[in-house]
């Protein structure tokens, strides 16, 4: 048993959305509404309670003579987004019930039988991943296929991915693989590839890192995500001051009015 991760490489992604479907089929997640968005070929728009893998499509101007794999021009990026399974996970810390747990594989697993739908994890996620299902009141997100991992199997999305754009494996191996891949792409002339693995912020790294063509922000990946618990210290100090003020004020009000 090792600590695992996803490496999702947009330079290999053909935008087929097999990951979305395989995920929904395996985890028996319902559809996300039948609305046409017209976001290029994306009609699921974002991760949410019923979408745990989401393929984003980013279009730039196409130039005849250059395919999408031409280093000179970034034309059409596709990237399968997923829960990041943060090292310091906002949702996990925030959860008051212990429904969210850290598994032996390093992922963050939301126990559906425990979750009480307090929705605090929803606002605690700096990536906008977790969401409460309004119909039945509990929160849902990517399980990292904890059930499959327990049996030594790959998550459903990584299993299906036709071009192995979604890689799954030991986190250290994949981090090395990501660096190798980045070096390879750089040496092939791709100057606009980015490795998205926020280790520099309070999130402290993730279990789902990405290689993107173009700026990660175009895929709604925040450049500096912070785990909300990093604000706790300030918050509780403030609460202490607030309590002190309340106490002092009240004491003053009662004891300072002796003249009555």
């Amino acid at each position, binding site marked *: 048993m090792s600590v695992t991760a996803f490496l999702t490489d947009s330079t290999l992604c*053909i935008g087929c959305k097999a990951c979305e479907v395989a995920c929904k089929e395996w985890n028996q997640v319902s559809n*996300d509404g*039948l609305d046409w968005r017209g976001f*290029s*070929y994306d*009609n699921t728009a974002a991760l949410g309670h019923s979408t745990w893998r989401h393929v984003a499509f980013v*279009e730039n101007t196409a130039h005849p003579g250059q*395919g999408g794999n031409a280093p000179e021009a970034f034309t059409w990026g596709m990237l399968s987004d997923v829960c990041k399974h943060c090292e310091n996970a906002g949702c996990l810390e925030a959860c008051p019930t212990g429904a969210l747990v850290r598994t032996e594989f390093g992922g963050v697993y939301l126990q559906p039988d425990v979750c009480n739908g307090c929705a605090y994890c929803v606002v605690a996620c700096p990536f906008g991943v977790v969401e409460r299902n309004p119909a039945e009141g509990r929160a849902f997100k990517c399980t990292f296929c904890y059930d499959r991992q327990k049996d030594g199997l790959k998550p459903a999305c990584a299993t299906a991915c036709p071009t192995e754009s979604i890689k799954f494996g030991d986190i250290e191996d994949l981090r090395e693989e990501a660096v190798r891949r980045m070096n390879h792409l750089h040496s092939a002339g791709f100057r606009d590839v980015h490795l998205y693995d926020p280790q520099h912020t309070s999130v402290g790294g993730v279990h789902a890192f990405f290689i993107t063509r173009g700026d990660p922000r175009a895929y709604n990946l925040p450049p500096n995500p912070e785990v909300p618990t990093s604000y706790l210290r300030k918050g509780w100090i403030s609460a202490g001051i607030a309590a002190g003020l309340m106490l002092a004020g009240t004491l003053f009000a009662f004891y300072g009015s002796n003249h009555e």
Partner: protein
Amino acid sequence: MPGLGTSFGRGGATTSLQDLSHADAILIMGSSMAENHPVGFQWVIEARERGAKIIHVDPRFNRTSAMSDIWVPLRAGSDIVFLGALINYVLQNEKDFREYVAHYTNASILLRDDFKDTEDLDGFFSGWDPEKQQYETESWAYRGARLKKDIYKRSKGGGHAQDRGGEKIQANEFEQDKTLKDPRCVYQVLKRHFSRYTPEMVERLCGVSQSDFYKVAETFCSASGPEKTAAICYAVGWTQHSKGVQLIRAAAILQLLLGNIGRPGGGILALRGHASIQGSTDIPTLYDILPGYLPMPYFEEDSDSITEYIQEHKTDAGWWANFDRYIVSLLKSYYGHAATAANEFGFNWLPRLTGDHSHIGYWIEMAKGNVEGLFVMGQNPAVGAPNSRMERKAMAKLKWLVVREMVETETATFWLDSPEVSRGELRPEDIETEVFLFPAAGHVEKEGCFTNTQRLNQFHEKAIDPPGDARSETWFMYHLGRRLKEKSKANPNPDNAGLDALTWDYTLAGEIREPNVEEVLQEINGRSVVDGKLVSGYKELKNDGSTSCGCWIYSGIFPSAGENLARKREPRDFLGHGWGFAWPADRRILYNRASARPDGAPWSERKKLVWWDMEKKKWTGTDVPDFTATKAPDYVPPKAAQGDDALGGDRPFIMQPEGMGRLFVPSGLRDGPLPAHYEPLESPVHNELYPRLESDPAAKRLDSPQNPYANSPDERFPYVLSTYRLTEHHTAGGMSRYLSHLAELQPEMFCEISPQLAAELGIRNRSFVTIATPRGIIEARALVTSRIKPLKLDGKTVHQVTLPYHWGYKGLVKGSSANDLIALSQEPNVRIMETKALLCNVLPGPMEHGPKALEELAQVMTGHKERRQE
């Protein structure tokens, strides 16, 4: 697949998906492989990551382009100009793989003096009969080849039957100039023929800049030779044209010149769109062939004796010399003991063809009220077939219709909720058609095999029972046949002799009495009649009625009881031997004798596959040799030799009487021995290459009031229309629009247009647009994207509008069907329709609904339609 069949000998992909990973360059054209064969595309990605260059030539920048190194947009329908220019580039710059070309292709063969090329006849080949609107192909024969009888009459039928090269001429008889210098040799004729396919023409007709053309030409051609190979992948983006077969021919010529056939990482991969579409031509549900590409007999010429029929279709040299063994064995498996030498093995129980009985052919008859009953199994012509408006209206003329499906498709309910009903063209109360809709079993609810795109038979096991009254087609056909045979028994009549004789004894199992599918597969594999022992392969088949075989090319799939090779799941090597069964004889890369030099040694260490083992005196390698294993490379056939023995040791294309890959096809094609560019039946431009001719003269337009055409060009319909598929849906949607997890991914019909056209017409992204052709009118959401480029053709801007065709009026997500817009038309060889290049108009705003839609269409037709503005 006459494009591949006439060129190489067999109508199937020459290579396998895995082998693409060995290519040094891959040209994908006429296909969005990443979208429609995503899992197969992993091998392209693998090749790319190993350093191969991926070239995608397509009107749209789609998900395949996004993965490619080079994307070149071209005008839909101009592909032969592009490919012709590549061929011309190879020939002019002598980039051809000369040793390969000289030995393994018919480049050196001399043509008859009366053969005239398009260069001589303004775009026609010799033999055009303007009255009959077809070619008399005699002059295309090799110099010195004897003609067989009735070369002319035969061309009325379908083309699938013509895959056996040379059934019209003795193509093993020819004269040769091995130096390739003679002006009448194929090589020189080819050079002259393609000389007008210049980069300038590419620029003017395809809208591809010369620099982009050279980029493709240099990239692709530099990836061939002894050390390198390049592959071509295509799909219906090439086939669904009025000249589809010639398009594939052009690719075949290019690959033969570059020496890419029969070698690892080379070849032409036909990417097929349905689970067993290869299987359904191998074991056809097509009108013009019997299993194993044996031709259906024709009325009159094949009416009488099997001997004449065999004489007509067998060849002296090459594998088709065995034709008699295969037809007799087939008749034995159809009619069993009732088939005897005395009654010509029941040959006269087979029906004779009298014309065009293809889908489009009989549908036109249906529209006239000449068809009473129709079975539709797993197909949805109401929205999936060209001119689907006409298709639907024609079904209202049927007396009865049987549909077998997993869901209630548009075809089953054309009488209830089709646009024609809402537009007032059909009234359910007036429609007499009796409709039976049978629930069908899914793939995990029955067993059987699919033949995939690389000719690989894979057996799928049954997991669960079908729900309710759902049944397999095996069950349906068996129990229907059983009932009919009982009826026949009760009413003896000579008309039913074939039905009475038909062997129909399969073991039934379970409560539902499902026939044993493996017994059917064994029947296909073939047996010895005397002891019922399964044959181990087609070499055991006999012409005297002592063997039976349901499809000779599949023979060997079930070599002994309990050994169903299609069911095998133990791959031994990269090519997958041990996993399933690839026809013929489990060969994974066809014509692989060509992977070795004429002397039998591999062309290079890097590209070795099959070679001659000097010590063991046999062909060996990592694939099953597609060659007689013990025939030495230096074998020279004796004069009187017949069949395979008549082919030398350096003739890799063993199905052909001359044993060579055909740059020039002397017989078997109806619209020319060489590809030539003709404009689509509807085109925005004139044919600049051959100004006397607009479209393929041999193609059938099937013009009629129900199937009208635009002019070429036509002010009323100024834009090029092309249709395509999306990854998220499957064909007309019967297997995807009903599934929530797919429906949500592409929930609405849309239309991709360029920002330029959108601005011209005042169309905003995501707004509704109306699209019209002379055949129909539909609506879609506009997806405005720079991935669609307006093309400059000779100074004129041509816009292309592209439509996915997955929607219909049933399912979780509904929408207009793009096929309402498509014309019925027939390519001359296989009668495929042209869906990839037509003309249309686009109007901003949604379509009028109900009867008003037709008024709107009429206005567009008369050119009076005012464009609605934002």
